[in-house]
């Protein structure tokens, strides 16, 4: 569970130095432009752009690969289903099943898009500390209730995850084996206890917070602090470059349709 997302956020590359607000906007624009692409001719371009950005980010390749394991299952499922289900033109037959041309092309399109977007997301969140990214979102106008909730949940996520692990160990030491559906009730009590403990903890956390002035008018919570970030012309230049690339993809896609 301890896959640290921002383990490499303290490297020093142009991508790391980029103002997080500009980086966030640029990457989101590029990600949406990628998701707009349907033409197979643009796929090599997408791979080139995300590959180059990944190289510039200096994140190790193993970091990317470790994060591909989980979503890999989804791709595998697609790879099993799509070539058989989609299209009319059979490429060849696997026993009684026809492998269809359109299905294979659909699969190619989906997996390349998926991998490119995932790479961009990993660069985006791998080159900035997570909390800085959330602050950048708040500076860009994310509702402060939502931003607060994200910050709190992030703070307690690992804490509660560790609690769950300890409780599961304690149960195991008293001989609990999850062998069949009969353990559903026990597991529901476990989940319920996690909820109750978190709820009780939140009460203590809240009390400790108001004692230190949380929610007071004029306090830190009165709005996004824009001076937290400072942008230079090069930040804007980066934004323009990525937006230009994004627009190029969209225009090319429209022309190729």
């Amino acid at each position: 569970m301890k896959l640290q997302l921002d383990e490499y956020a303290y490297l020093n590359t142009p991508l790391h130095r980029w103002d997080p607000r500009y980086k966030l906007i640029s990457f989101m624009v590029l990600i949406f432009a990628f998701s707009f692409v349907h033409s197979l001719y643009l796929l090599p371009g997408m791979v080139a752009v995300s590959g180059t950005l990944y190289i510039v980010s200096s994140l190790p390749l193993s970091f990317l690969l470790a994060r591909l394991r989980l979503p890999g299952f989804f791709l595998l499922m697609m790879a099993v289903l799509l070539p058989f289900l989609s299209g009319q033109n059979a490429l060849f037959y696997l026993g009684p099943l026809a492998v269809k041309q359109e299905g294979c092309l659909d699969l190619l399109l989906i997996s390349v898009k998926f991998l490119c977007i995932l790479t961009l997301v990993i660069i985006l969140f791998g080159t900035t500390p997570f909390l800085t990214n959330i602050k950048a979102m708040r500076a860009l106008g994310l509702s402060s209730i939502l931003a607060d909730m994200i910050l709190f949940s992030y703070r307690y996520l690992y804490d509660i995850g560790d609690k769950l692990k300890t409780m599961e160990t304690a149960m195991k030491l008293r001989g609990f084996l999850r062998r069949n559906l009969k353990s559903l009730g026990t597991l529901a009590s476990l989940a319920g206890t996690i909820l109750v403990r978190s709820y009780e903890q939140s009460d203590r956390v809240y009390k400790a917070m108001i004692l230190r002035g949380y929610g007071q008018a004029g306090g830190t919570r009165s709005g996004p602090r824009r001076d937290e970030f400072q942008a230079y012309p090069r930040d804007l230049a980066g934004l323009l470059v990525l937006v230009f690339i994004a627009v190029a993809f969209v225009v090319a896609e429209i022309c190729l349709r």
Partner: protein
Amino acid sequence: MNSKEPVLSVSNLSFSYPDRSLVLKDLNLIVWPGERVGIIGPNGAGKTTFFMLICGVLKTTSGEIRLFGKPVVPGEFHPEVGMVFQNPDDQLFCPSVRDDVAFGPRNLGLPEEEVEARVREAFAVTGMQELGDYPPHHLSGGQKRMAAIAGVLAMRPRLVIYDEPTSNLDIRYRRRLIHFLRGARETMLIASHDLEFILEVCDRVILIDEGRIVADAKPREVMGNAALMEAHGLERPHSLVPHAEPHHN
């Protein structure tokens, strides 16, 4: 029980987490039936890790741990060892104390009458009878501690491990726990920072620091050695400091 057979024998035990240096280095230890062994040492000395290895939750890097003559197999269920966690909340998860105490015996596959009997016995030993139908979340800190102990004792373990049992206890529950432990028959390992408590309960003390056993002797010998204690971030308990006018006998 064969009194010649050690309860726990640890030989040349080393352990490290995947990405860190050695947490435990070449530990050797033999615990005999009926011993109450106190384990002291500064925070991060490796006490809890050591317990997790004995229970088979973690896998040794090298060396061997035997319980009652049999090697500990990681991941297997060892009902002869019970562990009372530092935070009772980690252990109590059932809607009522009674269900929680019955949880272990049920997992042992005992018939329902036997489970009942075990629960009654555990309640009697820990003095929890009246609280059986309470949800654990409504108990006080001391009551939670006793409920967690009852949940472990109901499995009739022959070795019980206590991780910081006096943390968050008031004076009355601490005293009650001391009486309870001194009267208990099981062999036990007790980690605690409460040195006066160790002094009252244990008949042997092991000092662990930086993953090694630094001392292993009678409580008064180890904890009365001010130089040794201070070298490992501890203090000599007040009752072992020589008094000009003796008031501890």
